[in-house]
């Protein structure tokens, strides 16, 4: 189990497309901090035991961003379900039961704002859950 703290810091200019993903794994002290930043990091994404088989739901209404982010995550070894709306995200989660470990949400989603999706997920999943916005 991961049991790490996962959060996202947005680009200071407020652009939802400029994402810096910082993952910290508390129970693996030798791992330290891994930073995967599309466009800003010189680190090459490579399949990683931490991510292998990790089931992820990616929600982004922009087809291009969705394609690129999905590929980045798959390159890390994740199994990605890509959806384009908050509603699709919630229904994908309910059909996946407990196997999804990570949700990556674009903040600006049609019809349902990313924060609202996150709130609804939290209500359904009572235990503390790694959630990425």
């Amino acid at each position, binding site marked *: 189990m991961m049991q790490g703290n996962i959060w996202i810091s947005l680009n200071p200019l407020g*652009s*939802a*497309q*400029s994402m810096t993903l910082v993952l910290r794994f508390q129970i693996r002290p030798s791992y330290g901090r891994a930073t995967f930043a*599309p*466009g800003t990091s*010189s680190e*090459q*994404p490579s399949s990683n035991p931490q991510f292998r088989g990790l089931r992820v739901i990616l929600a982004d209404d*922009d*087809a*291009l*961003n969705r*394609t*690129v982010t999905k*590929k*980045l995550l798959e*390159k890390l070894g994740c199994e990605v379900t890509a959806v384009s709306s908050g509603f699709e995200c919630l229904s994908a989660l309910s059909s996946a039961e407990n196997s999804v470990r990570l949700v990556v949400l674009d903040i600006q989603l049609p019809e349902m704002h990313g924060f609202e999706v996150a709130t609804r997920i939290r209500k359904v999943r009572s235990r503390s859950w790694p959630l990425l916005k």
Partner: protein
Amino acid sequence: MDLLSQLRGQIADFSAFLHREGFVDDQFTQLQKLRDESSPGFVVEVVSLFFEDCEKLVNNMAKALEQQIVDFKQVDSHVHQLKGSSSSIGAARIHNVCIAFKTCCEDQNRNGCVRCLQQVNHECIQLKNNLQTLFNLEQQIIAAGGSIPAKQ
């Protein structure tokens, strides 16, 4: 020098040119690194998506700017989308024009916006031609029995 080496040299020079002139930045290199045996057409796919988007957005922006009363918020949201997707694929010049374009929208400067739109259009055409040249060179390498270099 055999054909393959010649082509590799050409593609290396051309990639260096694209980076030097700011047509693409490191994000484009990152995209190329994502290409593998399971998805050899990944970069072409993403780039095609981008240009489809670009065309739609440019048309929408042109229509909006032709109106008697310009809805600058709408133009701005189109520019914002283009700014985001150009950043995603590493289209640096287009991205930079979008930054200036956003300022014109904020200032409600119609002439400035029209100028920026013309620039965006110009940069899109240039990038499309340049990337087509790059992809053609890659196809030639494959046809000559080589594989696309991971790093140029």
